[in-house]
């Protein structure tokens, strides 16, 4: 697939995206710097386990749904989570592949991305419904929670149609414009929204893994004393 697009769309797909990406990266760097400036709790106790192995174990938690009761008992929810996040990764990937390496966006690759986008769109709808209707979720939800999931769901919907048209050999459509305008908005908005949770995710998991790995609670290989 050749990327024969107008100069205007090229500007949106490339220079604008790079500037926005730089903006996002700078804000994330600031976030991480602010966090790392804070004191990390020390561990001076004689360890029973391995803090490093605990951190790795904890980071890999996402791949072990049987590891937590909350995912073990709700495999359907977990499956949705996995599909949704794969779709996020593929969608972000496609915003790079489309302008930079359009030849990689073969019909097969595009179809796979499209299927994930479609599924994520449906999952998003279900998650919005859940947030509105399940009382315990509703009482903890802020407008940011509703906005973030709605935005993602619309993005997947737009991406789905865009991808369909791309497969038909139509690289420059109104949908493509909306798709990249939304991408631009995401890059500027996400550092301020709950969607930026993925930046904090490794920190939370690593610290949890270090504490409980060191105490011999996680991936037990316990030294006695």
């Amino acid at each position, binding site marked *: 697939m050749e990327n024969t697009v107008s100069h205007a769309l090229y500007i949106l797909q490339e220079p604008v995206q790079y500037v926005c990406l730089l903006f996002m990266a700078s804000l994330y760097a600031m976030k991480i710097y602010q966090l790392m400036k*804070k004191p990390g709790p020390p561990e001076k106790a004689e360890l029973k386990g391995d803090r490093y192995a605990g951190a790795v174990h904890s980071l890999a938690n996402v791949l072990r749904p049987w590891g937590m009761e909350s995912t073990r008992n709700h495999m359907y929810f977990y499956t949705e989570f996995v599909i949704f996040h794969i779709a996020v990764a593929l969608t972000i990937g496609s915003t790079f592949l489309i302008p930079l390496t359009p030849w990689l966006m073969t019909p097969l690759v595009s179809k796979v991305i499209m299927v994930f986008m479609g599924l994520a769109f449906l999952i998003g709808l279900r998650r919005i419904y859940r947030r509105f209707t399940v*009382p315990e979720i509703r009482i903890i939800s802020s407008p940011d929670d509703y906005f973030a999931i709605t935005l993602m769901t619309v993005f997947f919907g737009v991406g789905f149609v865009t991808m369909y048209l791309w497969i038909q050999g139509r690289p420059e459509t109104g949908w493509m414009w909306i798709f990249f305008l939304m991408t631009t908005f995401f890059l500027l908005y996400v550092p301020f929204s709950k969607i930026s949770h993925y930046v904090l995710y490794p920190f939370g998991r690593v610290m949890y893994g270090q504490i409980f790995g060191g105490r011999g609670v996680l991936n037990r290989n316990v030294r006695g004393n």
Partner: protein
Amino acid sequence: MADPAEFKAKQEDTKPIKLGTQEGRKWPIKEGFTPEVLQKMEELLPSKLNRIVATSLAGCIHCGMCSEACHYTQSIPEDKKLLPAYKADRFRKWYKYRYDWMAKVFPSFVGAQPLTKELAEEMYDKLWGGCTMCRRCTFNCPMGVDYGMLVRAARGIMCEAGRIPQHLQDTIDTHYNAGNNMAVPHDEFVETIEWIEEELQDEDGCENYTIPLDKRGAKYFLTLNPREPKYYPLTIQATAKVLNAAGVDFTISSRYWDLTNYAMFNGIDKDAKLFASWIFDEMKRLDCEYLLSGECGHGYRGLRWELPNWLGGVPFKITSVMELFARLIQEGRIKLDKSAWDGDVFTYHDSCNIARSGGVWEEPRTVITAAVNDFREMEHNRENSFCCGGGGGALAMPEFSPRRIAAGKIKADEIRATGATVVLQSCHNCTDQLKEICEHYKIHAKVMNLAELLSEAIVIA
């Protein structure tokens, strides 16, 4: 006197004993969240934000996966405001108001709120009276939000500003003033230990058993929960019996023997460090090899995992009687007669601080299965065990007692399902809570610790 070190130590022993800090401290507790209290809380917030607390406050995605993890939500499902994320949000809203970028422009969009009297009151209700810091939700949170640390930080801020349940703070002030949290005087403690020793020597085959006080150079320095000399002296007797039977070289300090540290629950690090330092000093004075925690959940965690951090490391080893008992059994140093407990059905409650936050859950099972024939696990056990409801200082907050008993329902249901006639545990707060919930939910089971279990089954050579 040949040995100057011994001479110095002897001199120290004969100095008048000044337990506690001798200041008669009474924490200045305020009646409500006045503007001054709120202002003080604002000032304190930054000092409590270490990396874990800040990540836990910023990292919640409101997914609700913790909703089924908490014994409050399981036991009181009609009250949705006991959901872990909802409770933590009482603190998080204020944190976001201060630190979230979006909240600077659109606070309500991200659920941020300024610290008002109403928000602070909700925080007080939920984080003192609606969370035992058991961390079961943490273990079920995809983001690793650490409720133990987060809630302790919030409590520390409230406490320092003067808002803490009176009885809980009284317990800490008593520890501060008297050297132990039940103000057991030195003489009374020594007399109690001597009396327990006599009682122990009256048991068949135990004539030569001793409970050495202040024995320098003993291998183990055994620490106690003040409830033991005060209300449950038989648990000291049982522990001493097992240790003597196995030939363990141990001692108890006549001065600082209290292993509890309720400053873990009010979030005041200065007090936590002070209480820990007394035990540390006794370890140095008695020159023991191991600091040995008695059967006490938060006390064990405080000594084993927190004390070295508060004091910047320690030059000795720290363990617990739960682990020591298991080792003595594995090494064949004590012989047990399982038939002593025939007719009883046993289950074991894993204290959150010992298991989930402490990594000790197979050792108690080694002990139990060596001593009884009929042991049955509860549905949720080991690191997945539900809190009994008595953790986090809950037993020292009578104003929240109805909720505490209600929150124990899931544990009571699981005990009932085992058909146990004896509920074993290794924690004094758990003991009291389990006794209360067994009575309240009409479960006919005794509550007992591991030393009592072994003491009955032990075969004296």
